[in-house]
């Protein structure tokens, strides 16, 4: 089948010549799940951006007389055990939860990519050393180590972020190094070497762009992982301090009311689920478009 479609593909390719970018967009949009993912991520990003401005109430103001109210016009998503408006807390929490994910992923990405590039490009003992470091980090189940680190440092959002960042960079390093090594052996890089192209130019012009695709995919998928990790640590008792409206903490606090006031836990629960779902779908979509051949690799790392 590949042969047939290959030759057909040549024809299609010719047809879509000079439409490189739009072809990728078209390929991305061809799968409705990708579009759903993108829509979810955009929605969540918008919520994070404008949420605090459109929230109807202050997220921390209590109304003990008005606690555990069912969803109503006044409180579209009800009130929690302290009479706070769940919708307002959700909207404020969007910024925080997304912010945590972005920050943690950002640190992981920067640290990991730097180390990966260094290892892949330098080779030799530097590579050997850095990769053993990566192996050691990857030898720990991430959340277990994060739990230990955050637990020892003491419960706070900052420590949780630090712990999650410390346990996630190695995947990037390994991915980047692998890509760099594979690319280094690609003929176009060998050709560039022969053409006396400088090391710096090879790195920036030939290696980095190849690395960008997989890294973006991994980072997108990672966003979901970080959000789930934060929620998990919150549940264990290492998350945000009250009264911070952070989704994981809200969900964890609300679990005692699951039976009596379902909205307290389920609202942030659904929000987390949709966010993670959105990033996962988006990441999958990007992978199909940017990096279709490395499915198992990223799966291993994310």
């Amino acid at each position, binding site marked *: 089948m590949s042969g047939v479609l290959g030759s057909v593909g040549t024809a299609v390719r010719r047809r879509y010549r000079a439409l490189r970018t739009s072809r990728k967009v078209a390929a991305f949009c061809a799968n409705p799940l990708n579009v759903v993912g993108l829509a979810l991520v955009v929605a969540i990003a918008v919520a994070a951006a404008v949420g605090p401005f459109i929230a109807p109430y202050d997220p921390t103001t*209590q109304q003990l007389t008005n606690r555990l109210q069912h969803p109503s016009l006044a409180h579209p998503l009800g009130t929690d055990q302290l009479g706070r408006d769940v919708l307002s807390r959700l909207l404020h929490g969007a910024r925080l939860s997304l912010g945590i994910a972005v920050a943690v992923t950002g640190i992981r990405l920067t640290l990991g990519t730097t180390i990966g590039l260094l290892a892949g490009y330098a080779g030799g003992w530097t590579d050997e050393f850095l990769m053993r470091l990566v192996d050691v980090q990857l030898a720990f189940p991430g959340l277990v180590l994060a739990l230990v680190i955050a637990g020892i440092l003491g419960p706070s959002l900052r420590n949780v972020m630090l712990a999650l960042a410390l346990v996630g960079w190695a995947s990037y390093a390994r991915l980047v190094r692998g890509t760099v090594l594979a690319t280094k052996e690609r003929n176009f890089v060998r050709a560039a070497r022969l053409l006396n192209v400088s090391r710096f130019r090879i790195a920036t012009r030939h290696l980095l762009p190849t690395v960008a695709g997989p890294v973006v995919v991994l980072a997108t998928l990672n966003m979901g992982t970080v959000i789930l990790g934060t929620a998990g640590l919150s549940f264990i008792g290492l998350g945000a301090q009250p009264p911070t409206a952070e989704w994981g903490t809200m969900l964890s606090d609300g679990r005692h009311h699951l039976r*009596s*006031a379902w909205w307290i836990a389920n609202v942030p629960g659904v929000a987390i689920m949709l966010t993670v779902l959105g990033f996962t779908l988006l990441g999958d979509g990007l992978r199909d478009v940017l990096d279709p051949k490395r499915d198992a690799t990223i799966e291993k790392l994310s």
Partner: protein
Amino acid sequence: MTADLSRRHLLSSVGGVGFAGLAGCAETGLDDTETAFTIVPGSDPTGTGDSWDNWGGMAPYWTRVVEPLVWGTDDMQPQPWLATDWTATDETTWVFELREGVSFHNGTELTADDVVHSFEENILTERGDFVHGWLHLEPGSVDRIDEFTVAFETTDPFPGFPGTIAHNMIDIQPPEADRRAGEIIGTGPFELAKMDQGQQLRVERFPDYWGGEPAPTELAFRAAEDATTRTDLLEAGEVDLVYEPATSRISGLRDRDNIRTEIQQSSASRFVSINIHRAPTDDTDLRRALNYAISQSEIVDTVLEGIGEPAHGPISTVIDWAADESLPRYDRDRDTARELVSQSSYDGEALTCLVETDMDDGRTLVQILQEAFKSIGVSLDIEVLEKASLQDRTDRGEFHLELTNSQSNSPAADYIMWENFHTMGIENKDLYEAEGTGLYNLGGEVDDLIETGFQSYDATETRESYIAAQRAIMDAAVVIPLFYEEYVVAADASIDGLDLHPIDKFAQWGDLTRTA
């Protein structure tokens, strides 16, 4: 070791049977007979892994396998148990008469030798100096007078001795018992049958119990430290009785016909203790202002669903020297509070309030405090910390407030006063010795009053001293009392014969029956 075996079996069969087989398999719990009951206490009945829980070879709190010499009455007075009588022959000597005809589970009769053995070999030796301070006993101070008489020589005058040893941990076992190997031989109405650490503990009826044969043939104590899980277990019908169901679920349980709920006042009291040696909470005006900001009854009526009594002092009213009524009152009065704040040295900085992760409703309560203080212009930073971090912080005195509670597991509750408010109490001693400060110790007169109360053999004098001390403490607003705790026990509606106790771990199961 049987536990290991079964797990290994389980593990090997998982591979063979596969997932399909999982759902259909039987429970390993009790035979579902009329006389067997499954109980879920508020804490892990097999112990938390903490040596304190397990020092008798098992956690003796809920199970009535082992027994102490003295028990406690419902109004927190020492009650004859394995000892039938006791007298202080001088300021530091207590002589106990043992009950005759008490059989251990292995059939031998309880004698003075067993008591001496239990104290000298186990209680005083294995646990070291902490126990010496607690019981005011040193090794070598327990003597056999005759077969059924034992004398204790306390290190200093200790009128609270009988009440203090009325504690599940101060149990009597014969020398044949091998605690470390898990061979527990007690005198209680139930014998230990099987223990799965962290999961459950099963006991069987001991027919020769000195108090008469208990009604249940078998009891299982399941571990479920999460209140919601306990509630779920009861609602799903997996267990017969649970302690402290989740607060949010109580009204739901009450509405159910097949479940009965009992409320029992406890020996515990919840309060906020204030570090009086750290600015700005070293300012009495500020501490009083904080007290005026709180409405105890609102808290009880809302988030606690009515479980608990609004408190005016730190000592539960089941304890006979609790001062409650006669203490200075700080009913919510935000104007007064604001005025006091402005008088005080407080200038807008955030106070720190610590609370332990595991405290029931802790996160909720502390947020109410935060909101209440905000309304009088005092801002509060909340730090929910796990046990170790919390202790680290309190040890160093780096906090302003701590949401905490006090509870006595023995009828003698004196140590609550001593350890919390006396300068040499465990909370204050280290900082006092290191820096001349402390945490909640007003010092001077209060120390004297507590010492008097602690050492007096005259009950009235003890009571008056303690009340005076509490008054001084509340005057200086060292604590913000919140509520005297009550606890709920929810059980299958068919169960009768509950015998609850202010000390939740003193419950007796001998009369449990099931009505048709």
